[in-house]
Structure formats: C-alpha cells, structure tokens
C-alpha cells in the first residue's frame, strides 16, 4: 500500500499557481506551530524517559498532520474522544503543555491526579478532551453516546472518536459504528492508519481492502485521505463535521500515515519494521511537507522553522521543569474519586494506610490534608 493513490491536497491542487486553501495565514501558522510543538514535546519526553525521569511516553513523529489537521477542522465546543496518540489535538485548541507535563510526571497537578500512566490525558477546558483509556476501542461507542446527547438536545456539536488501524478490530469499533449508523449520530470516526499496531502490520490486521471501506458494514460513508497532508485531513474532517451538524450522520475517515518510530518508548521497532519502510516514509514527513507549502506560498520564511521549533522546545522544557518541581499527589488521591462520596469501607482502608504511612515516617507533605 502506497499513499500515492490517496486524495492529497498538498501533492495535488496545492501545487497549482494561486491555490487558495481557504484558510487564513494566521490559522495556517497556528497549525504549523502546533505540529512543531507536538514534535518538541515528543523529543523532550524521549529525553526524560531515557534519563529515567518519566516512565513512558508515546511518540507521535510522522502523524502530526493527522492530529492537527483534524483538530483544526473542529470547534472548541465539539467533543474529542482521543487515543493516546492524539495530544496534538489538545495542543491545537490551547491546552497548555505544562498541564500535559503534569500528567507525564503524574504529580499533584495532573488532572488524573497521578493515577494514570503518562500520556493518558484528560481535559475539560478549553476543550472536552476526554480522559484517555488504555483498553482500546472503548471510547468509540462512548463518543457515539455523547453525540446522541448532542443530537437529542438539538445542539450544533459533533464528537470525534480517534483511534488506530489496529483498534478497528476491537469490539468498541464494531458497536460504535453500528449504533452511530442506525442513530445517524453526529460523530466522526478518525482511523489513523499509521502502519502498525505495535508490531502488527496494518495489512495483516484485516483482509479488507482499506479501513475506510469498513464503513460499508454500517452504512457509514468512508473516505481515505493522505494522513501526512494537513490540508487533506482538515478538509475531510471539515466535510464530515458539516454533514454531522446538518443531521446527516457519521463519517469514517481513514488517514493513511506512518508511525516514524517505536510504538512507545518501551518498544524497539527494528524487530518488525523493515528499514526500507522507514526510509520510504521519511520523505513524506508531514511537517516538512506543510513547511514547504508554507514557504512556497510565502506564509513562512525559510529561517523561521528553526526558530519556531526552538521556541517550542523552550516552552516544553519550561513545562517539564515546572512539572518536575511539583509535588507528587497526596496519599488521599488513592482513595478519593472512586465514588462521588467516599464510602465507609474505602474510608477505613484510607485511614489505615495513612496511619501506617505516618507511623513508618512515609507520609509526604500534603498527606496531612488527608480528608478522610
């Protein structure tokens, strides 16, 4: 499978003289900068992981255009049901990298209160970026349910469910697509076909001729776009959102892209990704391609990319320092948020833990506030 057979704007219409993307320069630059910010975040996380300061991170290299292109086609009041490889969407809409770094360190300012692994973000502000779950596919029907609520209340919003190629084999994909088709729910399914599910090549994941075609099983229109082309992804998502807002129901978008590295910082892809495949895709780097386009049309100066990346690095580095300087969560965070109110049995388990930690001199600053 090569990506040349895909609808691509950057390689197609955008090559023509006088091409108008219908997007302001400011917006184009915001997209570009967000992609660089994602890459900077990745690069710093990798260093933090290699130096043992965080346990784990998930690289996004190669798929930035899919994330940012999709986010840029949606509004702040739409709901995002992301995968762990989607945080560019949150960045695009203004989530502060510092808030993300708090999660990477699982500290007391982490919105997940240090309970989740790194990269499992949750935000409600400035967008609904719904708490990422490790079990794959579960968020797909959830997005459909959230979309049903929008529809029932007559709201003009959509829900986006984003997931990888491998995740199309999960139950959540099947049930989510089934229900969305029948309900004509205002939801967009974004399948990021990035070539692999950990070590499983995308073409062994399913015998179907593409991921987009899977929509046929559910009466959901499917489209296939060049996922390394921000403009293509943006256009496809914009059209799907328009359909959804107009009451015409869901769309399945397959963005064909490539994971330019391991699955996570714990993974070594050399055992299963041929070098030639990396080489082939290196030329299609989504940031480079978009950059060339912006430079060509004069939106970006040749000298700027380096500065922008440096600026992003500095921003992420400051975020990382702030997060490292933040205390770990208090002991009470183990026991709260299981229920709206702490029930007796959990309260007494917490009391025992707190008593023991106190006795052994392990109680940390902040544990004294244990509100049990």
């Amino acid at each position, binding site marked *: 499978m090569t990506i040349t057979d895909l609808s691509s704007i950057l390689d197609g219409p955008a090559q023509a003289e006088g091409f108008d993307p219908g997007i302001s320069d400011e917006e184009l630059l915001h997209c570009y900068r967000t992609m660089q910010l994602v890459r900077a975040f990745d690069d710093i996380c990798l260093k933090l992981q290699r130096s043992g300061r965080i346990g784990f991170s998930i690289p996004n290299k190669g798929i930035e255009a899919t994330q940012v292109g999709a986010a840029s086609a949606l509004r702040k009041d739409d*709901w995002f*049901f992301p995968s762990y490889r989607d945080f560019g969407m949150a960045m695009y809409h203004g989530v502060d990298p510092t808030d993300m770094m708090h999660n990477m360190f699982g500290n007391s300012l*982490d*919105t*997940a*209160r240090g*309970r*989740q692994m790194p990269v*499992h973000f*949750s*935000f*409600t502000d400035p967008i609904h970026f*719904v*708490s990422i*779950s490790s*079990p794959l596919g*579960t968020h*797909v*029907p*959830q*997005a*459909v*349910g*959230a*979309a*049903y*609520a*929008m529809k*029932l*209340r007559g709201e003009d919003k959509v*829900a986006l469910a984003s997931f990888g190629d491998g995740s199309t084999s999960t*139950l*959540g994909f*099947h*049930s*989510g697509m*089934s*229900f969305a088709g*029948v309900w004509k729910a205002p939801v967009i399914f974004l399948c990021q076909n990035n070539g692999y599910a950990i070590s499983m090549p995308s073409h062994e994941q399913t015998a179907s001729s593409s991921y987009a075609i899977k929509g046929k099983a559910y009466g959901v229109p499917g489209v296939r776009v060049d996922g390394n082309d921000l403009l293509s992804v943006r256009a496809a998502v914009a059209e799907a959102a328009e359909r959804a807002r107009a009451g015409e129901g869901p769309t399945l978008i397959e963005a064909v892209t490539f994971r330019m590295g391991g699955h996570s910082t714990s993974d070594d892809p050399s055992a299963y990704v041929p070098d030639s495949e990396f080489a082939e895709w290196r030329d299609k780097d989504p940031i480079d391609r978009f950059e060339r386009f912006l430079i060509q049309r004069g939106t970006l100066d040749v000298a700027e990319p380096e500065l922008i990346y440096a600026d992003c690095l500095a921003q992420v580095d400051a975020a990382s320092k702030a997060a490292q300087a933040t205390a770990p969560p208090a002991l009470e965070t183990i026991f709260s*948020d*299981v*229920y*709206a109110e702490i*029930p*007796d*049995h*959990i309260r007494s388990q917490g009391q025992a833990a707190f008593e023991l930690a106190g006795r052994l001199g392990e109680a940390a600053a902040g544990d004294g506030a244990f509100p049990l």
Partner: protein
Amino acid sequence: MANMTLIGAVNDALKTALREDPSVLVFGEDVGKKGGVFLATDGLQAEFGADRCFDTPLSEDGIIGTAIGMAMNGLKPVAEIQFQDFIFPAFDQIVSEAAKLRYRSGGQYTAPMVIRTPYGGGIRGGLYHSQSGEAYFCHTPGMKVVIPSTPYDAKGLLLAAIADPDPVLFMEPKALYRAVKGEVPEGHYTVELSTTRNVREGDDVTVVEKAADMAAEKGISVHVVDLRTLLPLDESAVVEAAKKTGRVVTVTEAPRFCGYAGEISAIVAERAIEYMEAPVVRVTGFDTPFPNTLEHHYLPDARRVIDAIEKVANF
C-alpha cells in the same frame, strides 16, 4: 399507595423518572415496542416517545458504551441488559470504563447511569438465563450494586439509583417479578442506597439476605438482614447483626467460590470473630454452572437454608 408486583414497581419507577427528568432515557434490546421481554418497560415508548425509550442493535457493548458517553454528556441513561447472563459482552465497558472513569479523570468525567438487569434462577432458564453474577461487579471498585426484594424497595431503590452520581448496577430478581406484591407509594420517593433492611428480628442465628420463616417453627429465633445494596455495603449493620446472635448464615444463589457470601464471611471473620459461636456458613448455588431440569436442587432454597440454620444453631 397502590398494590404492585415487583416488576410493576420497576415500571412505575421508570415512568416516574422519565416524567420528572427530561435527561432520563431508557433503552436496550426489545424495550421499546415490545416493552421488554418481561414487560418491565411496557408502555414507556408510547408515553415518552422513541427518543427517550428505544430499542438498540444487538450489542451489549454498544448499549453500555453509548450509555457511558451519554452520561458523560449530561443525559441520565437507564440501560437494560435483557438477562444478566448477557452482560458479559459489556464487561469491559462496565469494569474498565464506567467504574474507573471518575477515578482516572480526577472527577472531570463521570458516568452516572443505571444498568438494570434481571438475574437469578427459578424460571427454568438453564445455564444462561439464571445466573447471579453480582460478585463480578462487587469486586469492581467504582460500581454500585443494588438488589431489591420488595416492590417498595424496587421503586425507591431504582429512583435512588437514577439520582445517584455513580454508575449503579440494578439487579432485579426475576423469580420475584410477579411472585411478590406490596404497597408502593405514588410519585417520587427514594430508599437510600447502602442501607440494609431488617426483615425479621431474632436472637439465635443471623441470616444475611432473603430467607425463610420456617426455622422459627423449629424453635430457632432467626434474625434476617436484607442487604439491598451489595456495594458499597453497610458493613457495620452486618457486623452488628452478626455480633447480636454469634451465628451467621449467608444465602446467595451464585456459586460459592469467590462469591458474595464469602465476602460476608470474611467481614465477620475479620471484625467479629470473637463473637462467633459456630462456623460462619454459606448456603449458595453450587460451584457448577446453573443446571436446568434440576434447578430446584441447585437453588439455596428453604430446605437448604433451614438445614444450615439448624446446624449452626446446634453447633
């Protein structure tokens, strides 16, 4: 007040909730036109329309998964799983998602919803229309698990579950659907979750959960506690009841091993062992799948409960 069956009380509770709160929705397989295979949702679609009471495709994962999304986004779903035996395709959504969403998002996202499902034996349903799977869910922090055993409790507990900020599994003992009748107030009222009910006061043996009157005739004074909410359990009430008689028998239909009855034994063994004058006994379904023709031998019925009470009383 009206005299109702347990299933009538469920139906009444759903109607009450749908009337009072426009965010309440009822859905599942066959709950719409047909009104549910047991008719628990009879008449709802006619009264509230197909937007608020509707049938779904045949996917429990989809039912619970979409319910979670609705609950996150301001609706109050009351989803039906046709038989508790068929809840397992949705196990991941319940155990990994509904139960853990509040925790993993630090309270940013929550799943206040109710899953109603008929459970238990007594209708000749064999392996797959008879099971009592409460233990699976009671071992899942973040879930609440409620079982009513009277019409009054059924309505009051269901309305409390619908108002609750956490996901509640509401298990309806299908053998009692039309077998018990009782007075049920009109309109809204609730029975507080995590409170027990003393079915009967007595001094000799404490029986946890539903049980028989026959032991009394044999001169044994039985104290019977109906738990009503299995999780979070009012443990103190159980411990007090155990201490009072010094002899405990727990009755559940599910298999014994790693079942709910064992949790009661463990609580007693941890918090009241000094008071115990006899082994803490479980009367349960056997550690086998649920049979069909011989289900009357499988169920922990009065004959088995009385046998256990006598053994414990005479220890």
